C-alpha cells in the first residue's frame, strides 16, 4: 500500500470523529437546526468559515506531510517504525524523506477542515451559550458598579398602621376597657437583615477582585472538603453512569427540541390551503404556526358554497380555542398539535383496531413513541436527582417545588399532571354523509402499551354551513377536544339577562335614533347561547362584538381542557 501523509490521515480522522459525535448528539437533525436562534446560526457560520480557514493555514495543509503512514506485509523501509502489527501486516510510520507520500487534494483538505470546525461549532453554539457570550461584555462592564447601600442611622420606629374595622377596639383599648387588642394588634414589619457582598463605596477594584476570588475559593474548598468526599463522588459517579441514558437524553431533548406532547385530530375534511401548501409548510415553515395563530382575526366568515369553508372554520376555531394569546394564555405549543386533513372516515375504527399500524400510516408513530420515551426518561431523571441529593446529604428532593401557574388576574390555573393519557391524545372530527348530528363516540385504544380513549365526533354534511359565523364548529370541536365540555354561558355577558329573564331580540336594534346605544345590546346577546336570529342579520354581524363573547367561550373551554390535557 502506498504511504499516505499524516496530515491527510489526521484531518480525515478528526473530521470523522467530530462528525460522529455531532451526529450522535442530534445536531444535524432538521428540528435541531430549525431551532437555532439567528445569533447562534450566525456564530456557527462565522466560526466554521474563519476558524476552518485558519486551521487549514496553521496546519499547513496545503503543503506535503513530512511523515507518512502505510500498511505493509513486505519489507520495511529505512527508518520506519512499527505502530501496530497483526498477522504479518504492519502499520508503519516513517519520515517522508525520499518520496512524497500520497495526500488528499487541497480542495478536499480545505473542505474537511471547514467540516471539522462546523461540527465543533454545532456542538458548542446554541441559543443559551451564544446569549451567555453576548451578555459577557455587559456583565464585565457592569462588574463592581453595584455598591452596597451606605449605612443609615437607625430610624425611629414607624407608627404601626391601624387595621381597618378595628377603630372601636382601639378606642376601648385606649380607655382601658380591654387589655389586649387581639386580632386588631397592628402588624409590625420586621426588617430583614442581610450581609451585603457587593462592592463597598470606597473599595478599590483590586481589593474587590481579590475578595471575590477568595470567597469563591472558600466555597470550592467547602464543597470538596469534609468526610467521605471521595466515597460520595464515587457513589455519585456510579449513580450517574447507571442512569447515563436519562442524563444524555435530557440534553438531547433540549438540543433537538423533542416534542413535549403529541395531540392529533383526524378529519376527513380537505386541507383549507391545499395539499401542496401543507407539504410546503411542513418542510419550509415548520415553526411559524404560532405566528399564524397569533395574528388571527376574531371572526371568519365562510360561504356555504365554498369547498373548504368548513375546513377553514375548523382550523380557525382550532387556533382560537387552543393557541390564540388574545384570549388568555394558550394551552400549549402549536407544533405539538396537528390536524390530519383528508384522513379516512373510519380513522377512529382503524385506530381502535390496529393502533400502531394506523399511526405509522399517518407518519406519527415515531413522534408518539418519542413523547412516551421522554416522559419515562423524565421520571427516571427525577428519581436520579433525588438519589443524588440523598448521596450529597442534602434535603431531598433538590428539585425546585412546582410553582402554581396563575392567570393574568392572579387566579390559580389548575392543570392536570403529565401522564401518557394527558400528553398524548387522538380525536376524530368527521363530516358524515347524513344530515344529522350524532352523539360523540368513544373508542378504547392501546398504543405502545398505554391505554387511551379516543373521542369521535360526527357532524352533519351541510350542518350550519349556510350560517355566517360557524358557532357549530366551535362547539363541536370544544366537545371533541375536551371531553364533556359544554358551553353553558356561565359568567357570560348574557348570564345576567338570562337570570333576570330579560330577552334581547331583534326589536332592541330598531329605531332611527340612539343607534350606538342600541348596538350596546349586542354585548348581552351571546351568539353561543342561541340567538340564531343574529345569523340572518348581516348588518348586525358586521358590528357584532365577537371578541366579547368568544373570550368567554374560549376561557371556559381552556379551563376544561387544562384539566384533561397538558405537556411535559
Amino acid at each position, binding site marked *: 500500500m502506498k504511504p499516505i501523509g499524516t496530515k491527510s490521515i489526521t484531518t480525515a480522522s478528526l473530521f470523522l470523529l467530530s462528525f460522529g459525535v455531532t451526529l450522535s448528539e442530534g445536531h444535524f437533525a432538521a428540528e435541531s437546526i430549525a431551532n437555532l436562534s439567528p445569533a447562534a446560526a450566525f456564530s456557527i457560520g462565522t466560526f466554521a468559515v474563519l476558524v476552518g480557514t485558519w486551521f487549514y493555514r496553521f496546519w499547513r495543509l496545503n503543503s506535503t506531510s513530512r511523515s507518512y503512514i502505510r500498511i505493509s506485509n513486505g519489507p520495511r523501509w529505512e527508518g520506519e517504525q512499527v505502530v501496530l502489527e497483526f498477522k504479518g501486516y504492519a502499520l508503519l510510520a516513517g519520515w517522508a524523506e525520499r518520496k512524497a507520500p500520497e495526500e488528499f487534494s487541497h480542495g478536499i483538505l480545505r473542505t474537511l477542515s471547514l467540516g471539522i470546525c462546523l461540527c465543533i461549532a454545532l456542538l458548542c453554539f446554541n441559543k443559551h451559550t451564544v446569549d451567555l457570550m453576548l451578555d459577557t461584555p455587559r456583565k464585565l462592564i457592569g462588574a463592581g458598579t453595584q455598591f452596597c447601600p451606605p449605612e443609615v442611622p437607625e430610624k425611629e420606629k414607624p407608627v404601626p398602621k391601624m387595621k381597618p374595622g378595628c377603630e372601636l377596639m382601639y378606642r376601648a383599648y385606649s380607655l382601658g376597657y380591654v387589655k389586649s387588642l387581639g386580632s386588631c394588634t397592628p402588624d409590625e414589619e420586621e426588617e430583614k437583615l442581610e450581609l451585603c457582598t457587593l462592592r463597598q463605596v470606597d473599595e478599590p477594584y483590586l481589593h474587590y477582585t481579590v475578595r471575590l476570588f477568595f470567597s469563591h475559593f472558600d466555597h470550592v474548598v467547602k464543597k470538596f472538603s469534609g468526610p467521605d468526599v471521595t466515597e460520595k463522588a464515587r457513589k455519585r459517579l456510579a449513580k450517574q453512569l447507571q442512569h447515563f441514558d436519562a442524563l444524555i437524553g435530557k440534553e438531547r431533548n433540549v438540543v433537538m427540541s423533542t416534542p413535549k406532547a403529541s395531540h392529533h385530530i383526524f378529519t376527513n375534511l380537505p386541507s383549507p390551503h391545499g395539499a401542496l401548501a401543507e407539504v410546503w409548510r411542513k418542510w419550509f415553515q415548520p415553526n411559524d404556526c404560532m405566528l399564524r395563530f397569533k395574528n388571527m382575526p376574531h371572526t371568519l366568515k365562510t360561504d356555504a358554497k365554498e369547498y373548504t369553508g368548513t375546513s377553514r372554520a375548523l382550523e380557525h376555531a382550532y387556533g382560537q380555542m387552543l393557541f390564540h394569546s388574545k384570549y388568555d394564555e394558550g394551552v400549549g405549543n402549536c407544533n405539538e398539535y396537528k390536524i390530519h386533513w383528508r384522513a379516512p372516515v373510519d380513522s377512529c375504527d382503524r385506530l381502535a383496531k390496529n393502533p400502531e399500524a394506523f399511526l405509522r400510516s399517518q407518519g406519527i408513530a415515531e413522534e408518539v413513541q418519542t413523547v412516551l420515551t421522554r416522559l419515562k426518561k423524565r421520571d427516571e431523571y427525577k428519581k436520579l436527582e433525588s438519589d443524588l441529593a440523598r448521596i450529597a446529604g442534602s434535603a431531598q428532593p433538590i428539585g425546585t417545588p412546582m410553582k402554581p401557574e396563575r392567570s393574568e388576574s392572579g387566579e390559580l390555573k389548575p392543570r392536570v399532571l403529565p401522564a401518557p393519557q394527558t400528553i398524548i391524545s387522538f380525536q376524530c372530527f368527521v363530516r358524515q354523509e347524513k344530515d344529522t348530528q350524532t352523539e360523540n363516540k368513544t373508542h378504547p385504544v392501546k398504543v405502545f402499551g398505554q391505554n387511551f380513549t379516543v373521542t369521535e365526533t360526527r357532524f352533519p354534511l351541510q350542518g350550519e354551513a349556510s350560517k355566517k359565523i360557524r358557532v357549530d364548529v366551535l362547539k363541536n370541536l370544544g366537545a371533541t377536544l375536551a371531553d364533556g365540555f359544554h358551553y353553558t354561558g356561565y359568567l357570560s355577558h348574557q348570564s345576567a339577562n338570562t337570570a333576570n329573564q330579560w330577552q334581547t331580540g331583534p326589536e332592541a336594534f330598531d329605531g332611527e335614533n340612539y343607534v350606538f346605544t342600541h348596538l350596546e345590546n349586542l354585548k348581552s346577546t351571546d351568539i353561543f347561547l342561541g340567538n340564531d336570529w343574529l345569523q340572518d342579520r348581516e*348588518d348586525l354581524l358586521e*358590528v357584532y362584538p365577537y*371578541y366579547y363573547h368568544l373570550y368567554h367561550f374560549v376561557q371556559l373551554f381552556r379551563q376544561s381542557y387544562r384539566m384533561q390535557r397538558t405537556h411535559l
Partner: protein
Amino acid sequence: MKNLFLLLLFCSPAFAAAPFPKEKRQDYVKHALAATLSAPKQTLDNLYQFVTMVEQSSCRSAFDALTLSCLQEQVQRNCKSQGGNCPLLSDVIVVNKLNEKQFVTREERVQIMKQEGTGNYAAIYSRLVSRKYALLATELLLLQKRTCRPEEHACLARELDDYCIKNSDVKNIPWQACVSAIIWYIGVNR
C-alpha cells in the same frame, strides 16, 4: 314594471334582514360627527356631566344591561326638553361612558388609585381616557386610505366605519365604542 321591481326589492329577504345597512350606518356616523363638531363646547360639557352624574347615581348597577336601559331612558327624557342634536350627542356620550372600562383596564385604574389616591383620581382618569381616544384617532389617521379634509364629514365617516369594523375584529373594542370615542375626541379637540 318598475313598481313590481320595487315591490320585489322591498320584499326580498336581504332587504328585510338588514335594516341597518352600511350606507345607513355611515350616514348616522356622519350626522353624529357633524353634530359633535358643530355643538358649542358648553353643550358638550353639560351633556357629559349629565350622563356621568346619572351613570354614577340613579343608573348605577352591577348589571351593564340595567345601566344601559336606565341611561337610555334618562337621556331620552333629557333630550325631549332640549331637542336639536341632543339625541346624537347623548348617544355618543352614553356609549363612551359605558365603554370606558374597555379602554382603561382594571390594572390601570388601580394604578391611578395607588399613585394619586382619591383626590386627583377623576382628573387623571379622564386624561388617561382622552389619551386612549387619541391613540385610536392617530391610528385611524395613519391607516386611512383616503385623506379627508376636516369639512368632509361623509368621507371621514366612511373611513371611521371601515377602521372600526377592522379594529373590532382584531382588537377588543366594539364598533360603536370605537366610533363614539373617535367622534368625541375629534369633537372635543376641534
